[in-house]
């Protein structure tokens, strides 16, 4: 673990006498390594380690009999400062219906997460999931099957319909007639560098006027997480992140990268394939996991 590594480093250093600023910088190489191996973005790591260094070369660390412990405490504090903050609960509209759009790269877990979110909101609400993905084969069918498993409402496009704004408008009419008060829009996976599809998303946002637009991110996403989140954020303002497949063993550094670079908070974590597998995001547990 990082703690063990730092203790080893400091033990070796203290045998040579009093700790110096240079010793601390050496120890921070291990912190940097741990963060990079945890898939935190290169530049985010650079800024974060510098913040840690400035605090870690203070007298209370240099004179401490447990410098490793002090440094680790600083690391956790700086990580929490980066990852915490920002509204971590789901927003609702002052007047129903509350509308949510889920967006993200291909295969990140949007369709499954739409239904999980609907399931979560079933208590006290009447949710409707809407299939706006006309691109992936049998996407609407997948959403229909999952929503029936979860016991939530489903609205799908007419056969061959490819106009997402039209699908959205028809869904909102349908919802108004049937008194659905929570609408969750599932969109097609897309590359953040696909101009046409990003434009489609921006237009969908204007039509739907969601209270939240949530970026669904696979927790194993690597260094590109910052570029992806920033690009989506520019086209359709994001209000939250949902990190999926946390039940795997990826370190999940993408969570820290995205929050640090865009300020968008992680709100939920997908922890499995079942419709009940959605938890409120735990930033502290995530910090420990990222450091390995």
């Amino acid at each position, binding site marked *: 673990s990082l703690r063990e590594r730092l203790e080893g480093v400091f033990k070796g250093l203290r045998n040579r006498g009093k700790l110096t600023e240079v010793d601390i910088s050496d120890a921070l190489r291990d912190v940097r*390594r741990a963060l*990079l*191996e*945890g*898939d935190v*973005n*290169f*530049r985010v790591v650079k800024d974060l380690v510098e913040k840690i260094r400035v605090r870690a070369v203070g007298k209370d660390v240099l004179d401490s009999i447990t410098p490793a412990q002090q440094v680790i405490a600083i690391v956790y504090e700086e990580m929490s400062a980066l990852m915490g903050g920002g509204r971590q609960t789901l927003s609702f509209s002052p007047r129903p219906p509350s509308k949510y759009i889920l967006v993200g*790269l*291909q*295969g*990140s*877990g949007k369709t499954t997460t739409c239904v999980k979110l609907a399931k979560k909101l079933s208590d006290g609400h009447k949710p409707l999931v809407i299939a706006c993905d006309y*691109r*992936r*084969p*049998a*996407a609407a*069918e*997948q*959403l229909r*099957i*999952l929503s029936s*498993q979860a016991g939530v409402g489903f609205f799908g496009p007419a056969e061959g319909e490819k106009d997402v704004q039209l699908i959205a408008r028809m869904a909102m009419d349908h919802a108004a007639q049937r008194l659905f008060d929570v609408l969750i829009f599932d969109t097609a996976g897309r*590359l*953040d*560098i696909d101009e046409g599809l990003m434009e489609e998303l921006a237009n969908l946002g204007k039509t739907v006027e969601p209270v939240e637009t949530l970026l669904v991110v*696979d927790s*194993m*996403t*690597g*260094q*590109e997480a910052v*570029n*992806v989140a920033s690009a989506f954020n520019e086209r359709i303002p994001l209000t939250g992140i949902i990190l999926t*497949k946390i*039940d*795997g*063993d*990826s*370190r999940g*550094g*993408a969570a820290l990268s995205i929050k640090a670079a865009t300020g968008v908070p992680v709100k939920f974590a997908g922890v499995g*394939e079942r419709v009940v597998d959605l938890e409120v995001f735990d930033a502290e547990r995530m910090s420990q996991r990222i450091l390995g």
Partner: protein
Amino acid sequence: LFARGARDDTFWESLEEILISGDVGSRQTEEIILSLRERTSSDTSDSEALGTLSSILCERLRAVEGTGMPVRFSTGPTVVMLNGVNGSGKTTTAAKLAWILGNEGKKVLIAAADTFRAGAVEQLNVWGSRAGVRVIFHTHGGDPGAVVFDAIRAVEAGNFDCLIVDTAGRLHNKTNLMEELSKISRIIDRNCQGWTLESFLVVDAVSGQNGLKQAEVFGGTVPLTGLIITKYDHAAKGGIILSAGNELGLPVRYVGIGENMDDLKLFEPEEFVNALLG
């Protein structure tokens, strides 16, 4: 970026950022930089150093047996098993492979061995009809091994050249799911004596270091013969393949470059290295 002459700290820092940002990983990056330092001197120019690096990386990839090699055919039918974590692109890749091999005159059959996920069989059936390829499937929730067994029988009865087995996505830390995968692989091994067996790990190019862990654990469960890197049309560089080759000896056979049936091509080390180094 590297237009200046003699190298200095800035060169090494920029290089480190490029490699790490390309998901090469910190350990592999350190090793690459050390190895480049050994092969360059203070009067090597930046562009020369980059050229040397490019050759080193291409050589390393080429040294991994099977790099850029298409699905193998010899005597007997070929079975291609597709493995990987959830959402990596297995089902789409199954369709792409079926399409490519079909166009090369091979008679292809697809086994829909993902009996678990909602809409998985429907998704594969749409692809099958688009590719003009027959799909063997059972009812939802059935035993994946039974689908594979049926498909093997169908290959023999119908004189097919190639069977592509699409499996359910699974996270490699789920022991029971990995055991299920191992069982499917053993069914193929037992019932396809004398056939050519391929087993690919399908990995998302946007993956971070966990992609390497996937290769390690999946590789320890089924006999992998290569990687397919999907979503390579993204800006992600897929740097983990350097470690996959170096440390695990796993070659990249194909890359997926889009969502259409013809968006699959053989892996090319030079193209990968150029994209990585910018």
